[in-house]
């Protein structure tokens, strides 16, 4: 095994371990949320979906924001590490979006009486999800690395620009979606036990993000090292 390849394999292993620890910690979040956090009287047990849905939304929107920042920096600095990171973060963001977009309707059915409504928050979120699936499709379709990085950076920046609109959509438009209860100018409006569980779950999702992105970044490094070794022979 060559030195760059061994280095890339190390990154992959570190990422997998971090992701594995994150998944074990997620089991701890389930115990905390289901066994030690009070049941909300008006919504019942379905309210506990919130401890997955909100951290997944957090992780997805952080992922997409970082794609945009890395993409903008790539266009400026032309550093391939930034493009590699953006690709990894986009893929992981799509995974967290899938969690957000499945847990949301499952909560909405018993609370709103419908799985889905085409209001601003939900529609924008779905749009960004499809936009980043398109981003990954674009990356798969363009084979020249420099062109692929340049084209996808533009899409990544456009995707990032939608993130603030998703967060602010509940203020800008009439929407069924609840308003923020933590990330808002005033103090969080949540009982302390619920807030603690939510914050721990958010930390665990952040750990999962780091583990997944590190693994995905390492796998891209392995691919590149293999191609370089093939070109050298």
């Amino acid at each position, binding site marked *: *095994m060559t030195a760059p390849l061994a280095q890339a394999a190390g990154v992959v292993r570190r990422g997998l371990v971090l992701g594995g620890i994150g998944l074990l910690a997620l089991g701890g979040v389930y115990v905390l949320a289901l066994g030690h956090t009070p049941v909300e009287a008006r919504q*019942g047990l379905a309210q506990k979906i919130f401890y*997955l849905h909100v951290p997944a939304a957090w992780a997805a929107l952080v992922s997409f924001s970082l794609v945009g920042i890395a993409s903008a920096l790539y266009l400026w600095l032309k550093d391939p590490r930034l493009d590699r990171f953006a690709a990894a973060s986009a893929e992981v963001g799509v995974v967290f979006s899938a969690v957000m977009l499945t*847990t949301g309707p499952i909560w909405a059915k018993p609370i709103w009486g419908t799985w889905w409504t085409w209001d601003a928050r939900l529609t924008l979120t779905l749009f960004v999800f499809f936009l980043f699936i398109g981003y990954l499709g674009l990356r798969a379709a363009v084979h020249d690395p420099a062109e692929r990085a340049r084209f996808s950076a533009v899409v990544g920046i456009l995707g990032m620009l939608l993130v603030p609109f998703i967060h602010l959509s509940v203020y800008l438009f009439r929407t069924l979606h609840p308003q923020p209860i933590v990330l808002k100018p005033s103090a969080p409006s949540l009982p302390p036990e619920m807030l603690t569980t939510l914050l721990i779950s958010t930390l665990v999702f952040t750990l999962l993000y780091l*583990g997944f992105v590190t693994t995905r970044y390492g796998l891209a490094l392995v691919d590149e090292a293999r191609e370089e070794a093939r070109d050298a022979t």
Partner: protein
Amino acid sequence: MPPETPQNGEYLVAAYVIATAILLGYWGALLRRARRLLKEKD
């Protein structure tokens, strides 16, 4: 739980199962891809 609290635990179970399947599935896919790629290198 007060008696007037809605009984909707099945939605909770569905959401937790699906979220776990997505996250565990993605980690498993990364693990499989890593094993395959790293085996090719050795």
